[in-house]
């Protein structure tokens, strides 16, 4: 073997052993770290935003993040027990917002929405949660149960189909235009909190989210069905042997997740005041991001992930990008949220709270 051949050979070996992935990852993380730091410093130096602006953005982020957190619970619950991504969960949420729209309009027509706002809101919550819950249960029955045990991609494809179906069902019912959601007078306006003004709707959303999260936490930790859910998530076969009705537990999981999504729908319309048949997609995918960010399968993780994502999304584009000279940085909001999703999955698939992802069949 001549020296040239040996050199060529060792070069080839070197090339083959070259950790392409790692190199790309390192470069990627360096670029992002540099961009974030440089952007932040530059933006803060411009001094275009006051402390008040940042607080407003932050509070908006927390409010939005709480909605993500509640939707994320649905992903996390289903994932924790079935290990599938319920891709149609965003549409379950959308059904909640449409139900809220329907009921709120009926109440507003009768003038009940503003004369009895608190009972009206409670009624809205109950009806939306019930409708979303039924849709989630039907979804499980039609699109997921027949496919238990099929290759992983199969339920994902049916989920996409179910998503389309639900979106266009609601489009058929209510029309393709975005609809205005009636205002509730007591939720308009601001409240001064510690020297800053915060919108009333945002307070309702955050408070509602905290209550829902606590309720779910208690259900999972303290009730019989919560224990059954944890057991089935741990090991389905053993749980069945221990006398747990697996099918029924799975249905309950979907039902609870669906009810939460419906409730989240109401919180969401308080913030954004309009409903649209495609509106489930982005909150859905962002809530999924939140669930993964916090560590999918963990309820605390969902809450944490939702808040972190909401804040990053609200503050991030302006904080990181204004300084670099990007015009209208808010347009790039999806880049921030999807970017976070991609980065979390690449660098820490287990999420903030989760253990590093172990390979599951």
């Amino acid at each position, binding site marked *: 073997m001549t020296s040239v051949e040996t050199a060529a050979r060792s070069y080839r070996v070197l090339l083959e052993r070259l950790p392409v992935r790692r190199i790309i990852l390192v470069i990627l993380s360096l670029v992002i770290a540099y961009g974030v730091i440089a952007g932040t410093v530059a933006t803060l130096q411009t001094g275009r935003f006051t402390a008040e602006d940042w607080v407003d953005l932050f509070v908006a982020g927390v409010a939005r993040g709480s909605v993500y957190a509640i939707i994320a619970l649905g992903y996390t619950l289903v994932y924790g027990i079935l290990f*599938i991504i319920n891709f149609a969960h965003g549409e379950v949420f959308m059904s909640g917002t449409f139900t809220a729209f329907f009921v709120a309009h009926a109440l507003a027509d009768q003038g009940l929405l503003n004369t009895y706002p608190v009972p009206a809101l409670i009624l809205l919550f109950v009806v939306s949660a019930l409708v979303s819950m039924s849709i989630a249960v039907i979804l499980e029955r039609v699109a997921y149960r027949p496919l238990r*045990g099929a290759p992983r991609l199969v339920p994902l494809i049916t989920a996409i189909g179910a998503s389309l179906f639900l979106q266009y069902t609601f489009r058929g019912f209510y029309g393709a235009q975005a609809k205005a959601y009636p205002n509730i007078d007591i939720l308009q306006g601001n409240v001064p909190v510690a020297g800053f003004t915060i919108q009333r709707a945002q307070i309702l959303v955050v408070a509602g989210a905290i209550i829902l999260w606590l309720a779910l936490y208690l259900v999972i930790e303290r009730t019989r069905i919560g224990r059954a859910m944890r057991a089935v998530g741990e090991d389905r076969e053993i749980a069945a042997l221990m006398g747990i009705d697996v099918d029924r537990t799975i249905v309950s999981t979907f039902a609870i997740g669906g009810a939460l999504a419906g409730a989240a729908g109401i919180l969401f319309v308080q913030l954004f005041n309009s409903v649209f048949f495609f509106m489930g997609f982005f909150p859905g995918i962002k809530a999924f991001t939140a669930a993964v960010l916090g560590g999918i399968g963990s309820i605390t993780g969902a809450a944490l992930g939702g808040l972190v994502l909401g804040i990053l999304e609200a503050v991030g584009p302006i904080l990181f990008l204004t300084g670099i000279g990007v015009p209208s940085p808010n347009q790039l909001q999806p880049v921030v949220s999807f970017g976070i999703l991609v980065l979390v999955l690449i660098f820490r698939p287990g999420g903030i709270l989760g253990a590093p992802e172990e390979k599951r069949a």
Partner: protein
Amino acid sequence: MRRLPRYVRVGLLGGFIIIYLTAVGMIAAFHERNIITGVVQFSVVLMTLVYMAAGYLAARAPKGGSPPLRPTRDALIAGAVGGVLVGVFVILMTVLADAGYTPRDMFIAITPATLDILSFDQGTYLSLPVQAVLGAVLGLAGGYLSTATPNVRSTVTRAISATLIGALGAPLFSVMMAGLGIPSRWLFRSEGLTIVGTVFVVGVTLLLRWYLLRAGGVRNALDRVPGVTRKNVNVVTWAVVGVVLAVLPWIVNTFVSDVLGTVGLYILLGLGLNIVVGYAGLLDLGYVAFYAVGAYSVAVLTARSSFLVGADVTNLAPDGFMNFWVAIPLTIVIAVIIGVLIGAPVLRLRGDYLAIVTLGFGEIIRTLVLSDWLKPYLGGPQGITEIPSVPVGPFNARDPRILYYLILGFVLVSYFVSTRLKYARIGRAWAAMREDEDVAEGMGISVIKYKILAFVMGAAVGCLGGAFFAAKLSVANPGSFTLLVSINVLAVVVLGGMGSIPGVVVGSLVLVGLPELLREFGEFRLHIYGIILVAIMVFKPEGLFPDARRARELRGEATVKEPVPALAGAAE
């Protein structure tokens, strides 16, 4: 609910389906579509099929149960129950409207006109008996079908399908017959079959059935003709297909040629995605990203308004930066680079995470393209205009016919390459990897390398599709690159059968070609896609034209890991 007899439940379900179809607007929209002109509309066919299906199911043994004792009675009751439900719905809606709660304020599709369709213009209160009788009769017919011999059943279903195909394809067929110089007035009128036409179609179907039943199938019938061997049957089939493909643009109008071009593009995209999803088993929901990359690359490289030649929309340069044919290889190189950049970090992820991440990438690319930030280069929401057509010697490629041949050419090349890839070493490596990654790794297959290969090849094909798309429309704007494109292509691949190459062709024809031609379906296209995706995955995961190996995989895995039967009731 469980207490109700099965036939009542089936009937109620049927009734609910019809009410659902009404509420989403399908009944009203499809009432515009003639099947037998002036006699039967597609909306009526839908109702008919639902009632017949209810009767059919009611007369059939439930899964794992015994067949009903009195199938005819059950079928009749099922249909009637469905009809009564629909009738009650019509009456309820009218009563509500009379009381001042107009249903259409909320549910936009429930209009008085739609309710008239349901009552067959007999007035609200007669809708109940009309629908009940209709349901009972059709349910009975369905029940009869379900208890009839297989021969009768398949003959009837074939006659019905032939009529439907003839009627729904009427606009296309009449254009084709006109192109061939055959009179078609006696067969088709205002986008439906005439009565004579219906008799003709049903008659031909029955004759054909009768002949084939007597001869014992197509194969046997052909074998009996002297001088026919299986080989020259194949040659003749391919020759016929070739001739049809070659002359097709000349016997249809330019609109249909244009549709054919779109179908061709989707076949191209489908073949690309089929490599990723079908061969390698990687679910890529962001396939549109590569489509967009292809379109925008060609746009930037060839458009007269591109920043590369220092021009903009108001100030066009005399020429683009380069010629389309020079831009194509460059575009593919760009796609490959982006494919590796995206693929290398994420391909290690588990299947469902990969799907979401690719979806994220698709949205990232769309947002970037749409943003003010990149507007000076990519044109923001307006996109890039003034993209020249594909230069093909002396011909004008804006003519959909020329474009059709071009796309056809590329489709044939991709078809051939896909087929060869499948049985090559690389194709077998993909199959092994798809079936079991760990085992494949153990057999010495570099999983990550083959995944990236598949991803990049899919990217290159998708990019090619995007390039043609841009040149076809002469614009590239973000509105054309939404998630729905990815889902369309995925639906094409899934319907045909993952990993099956003829499946992609069939999938594109059915999912892309049909809705373009049947404009009444346009609005409901995605609605129906959704139903198809779920139904295919639940009932026939291997698709309509399955690839043998993949079918075994999908079926096999589904049966090996049966869910654990729960010890139901033991918890109480």
